């Protein structure tokens, strides 16, 4: 027995060692861990929308700003002048509109006048018609009376002249009627033209609307001279001074959005299949090694940039030769949302961190929540 006790003791130790090794390896597989992680946050590049000199810059570098707080003020005077000009143009447009409306009223009056002239010409013609009938009857009577010597040749000639002149008068009246009709048509055409020029009435009038839009644009431009913080966060690396020229659409300063702090852990592709969104994660920052932060996997990246396959000379794919024996696993970013950040920990973008993910903890937690009533 004593002879074998040596082997039993040694074998026992070896067995324990192998068991521990297997157990540890199993734990390692099920709790992927990476030293390659960084703290990230959304960086907002604050960009002025109008150009001008900065006349007010109340913020300092690395300062916290709340959403809506004034960041800087661009000289508003030119934009105030532009607004005044736009307002004047708006008033002018309204005046033009009113003048055009008056014009239309004038054309309408002219139209009525033409109608009245037509009526008058018509009644004139009717009156002349009666005159002609009367003159013709008189002329006829004189013609009948002359052979009986009951009238003189002179009276007959006078009646003839009367008749002929009334016929002429009627021709003149008809010409006036035709002229009045033409003038009516002209007035109608002029009215239609004036109406077309004026366009829609009231607030829908295009000229008025265009002027109003210009006023609104000038108002907005004036508003844009005050640049406020779009989000709450830290002003970072402020390279912008009082008196500098702010240029439209060119970023002036950046703000680190505090509500978007997260940790990106770059895990080897061999571990990715063991990680799923919702898994518990523990983050250790190099800056705070003894303060592990808790969080969960928010999402896993769907792609990383690769060098192989990009177009090289003659648009042929550039492929680097690789050494067959040693391959490096690619790393995929895993986004970890931190659930709780102690007040003593101040996160800064770019901090190095290590990330431990507990595989399968997402479904386990779901079960827990399902069980609790």
């Amino acid at each position, binding site marked *: 027995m004593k002879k074998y006790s*040596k082997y039993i003791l040694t074998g026992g*130790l*070896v067995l*324990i060692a192998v068991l521990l090794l297997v157990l*540890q390896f199993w734990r390692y597989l099920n709790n992927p861990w990476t*030293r390659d992680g960084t703290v990230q946050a959304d960086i907002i590049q604050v960009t002025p929308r109008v150009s001008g000199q900065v006349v007010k810059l109340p913020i300092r570098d690395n300062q916290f700003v709340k959403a809506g707080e004034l960041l800087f003020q661009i000289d508003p005077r030119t934009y105030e002048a532009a607004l005044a000009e736009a307002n004047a143009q708006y008033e002018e447009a309204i005046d033009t509109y009113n003048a055009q409306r008056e014009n239309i009223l004038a054309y309408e009056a002219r139209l009525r006048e033409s109608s009245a002239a037509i009526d008058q010409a018509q009644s004139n013609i009717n009156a002349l018609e009666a005159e002609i009938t009367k003159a013709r009857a008189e002329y006829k009577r004189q013609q009948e009376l002359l052979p009986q010597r009951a009238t003189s040749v002179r009276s007959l000639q006078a009646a003839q002249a009367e008749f002929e002149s009334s016929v002429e008068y009627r021709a003149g009246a008809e010409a006036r009627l035709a002229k009045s009709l033409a003038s009516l048509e002209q007035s109608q055409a002029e009215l239609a033209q004036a109406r077309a020029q004026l366009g829609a009435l009231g607030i829908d009038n295009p000229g008025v609307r265009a002027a109003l839009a210009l006023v609104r644009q000038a108002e907005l431009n004036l508003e844009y001279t005050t640049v406020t913080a779009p989000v709450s966060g830290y002003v970072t690396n402020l390279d912008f001074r009082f008196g500098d020229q702010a240029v439209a659409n060119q970023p002036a300063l950046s703000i680190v959005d505090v509500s978007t702090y997260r940790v990106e852990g770059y895990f080897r592709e061999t571990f990715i299949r063991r990680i799923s969104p919702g898994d518990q994660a523990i983050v250790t920052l*190099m800056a705070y*090694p003894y303060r592990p932060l808790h969080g969960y996997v928010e999402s896993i990246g769907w792609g990383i940039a690769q060098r192989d396959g990009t177009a090289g000379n003659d648009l042929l794919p550039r492929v680097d030769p690789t050494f067959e024996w040693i391959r490096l696993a690619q790393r995929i970013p895993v986004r970890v949302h931190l659930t709780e950040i102690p007040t003593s920990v101040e996160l800064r973008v770019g901090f190095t961190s290590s990330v431990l993910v507990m595989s399968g903890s997402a479904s386990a937690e779901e079960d827990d929540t399902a069980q609790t009533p």
Partner: protein
Amino acid sequence: MEKIPHDVSVGGFYLSPILVSGLLGVLAALLTARLLDRFRLSRYFANPPVVIISLSVIYSVFFGVVFVGI
């Protein structure tokens, strides 16, 4: 309480916790072997080198889990 894995900083070098716990385990195993020899306990083992290797693994896992965090 299990330790959370994190880099171990030694004079500005950030070492992997596995490396640190492995080194500690090997040192502890060597020390144990010296003591076993000293107190003439090595004779109870069939193959001392295998015992040292096994002890290294056991100590490494122990230090790793309890002190360093692997």
